[in-house]
């Protein structure tokens, strides 16, 4: 299905958020996810089902002021 990940389009076969992260290659433990603007905690990733058109944000620590 087509979803958007960090503003780029992807065609993935995974059905859950957790499986999608693995498929996309996000292996770092230091990431946080939001689906359609709402935070999804790590513990919920494997039960959250994705749908076509979903917007996924994968964020990580970055320099900031």
């Amino acid at each position, binding site marked *: 299905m087509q979803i958007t990940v*960090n*503003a780029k389009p992807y065609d993935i076969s995974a059905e859950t958020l957790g499986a999608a992260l693995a498929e*996309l*290659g*996000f*292996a*770092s*433990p*230091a*990431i*946080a*996810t*939001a689906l359609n*603007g*709402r*935070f999804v*905690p*790590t513990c919920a990733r494997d039960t959250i089902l994705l749908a076509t058109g979903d917007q996924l*944000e*994968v*964020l*990580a*620590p*970055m*320099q*900031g*002021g």
Partner: protein
Amino acid sequence: MRVYDTEITLPLFLGTAQYPSPAILQEAIAVSRCEVVTVSLRRETVDGTGAAFWDMLRATGTRILPNTAGCHSVQEAVTTAQMAREVFATDWIKLEVIGHADNLQPDVFALVEAANILVADGFKVFPYMTDDLVVGEKLLEAGCQVLMPWGAPIGSGQGLRAPDALRAMRAHFPGVPLIVDAGIGRPSDAVQAMELGMDAILLNTAVARAGDPVGMARAMALAVEAGRAGHAADPIERRDIAVPSTPVLGIAELM
């Protein structure tokens, strides 16, 4: 300074952006003996660059204050805060809700709304605000236990544009930790803020973009300590006329 049940010895919080290299950032933190640093969340790439930065920062032993920099709405800020709490394993959040593209001033209406939501969700909120007393009152009512008024627009290095407003905040919120966030350009600005009775300074650009960031980090650490000591020592009032320091009594007549 005591903020959210945490004792902080050096009243200087450093941002972690814009340094010439990670090594210089680490050295600036070490030399200043800064105890709290701010960090952000940004889009991750599959090569995991965020994790390396996070490992480096953890190695400094500083307390992490994640921020919601760049958020322009309540929803963005709340979601970012929730994501930061998970990644950084802290309930501290520097809440920024930017309201204006030119001067990056906070949208204080959205700020108060987001603060209410986050405090109810268990966050310890550090709100980046203007120097408005009523906004301060609303943030305290929301449950914030610290206020972070700006000194000048972010990254401008203008120093304290409205010292009187900060003085009024100090008088109006006597027991509340006040941290000047944004606008500090030089050590003299930091001294001035601390002499006004502010409890700490948060700055980034002034150190990171200095010709010698490590040297400036050291200077800022000295400045906040000098300003704090000066405030505690109760400075004299300014006068419009001269008053001789040396006693007039006993002066010789040599004409």
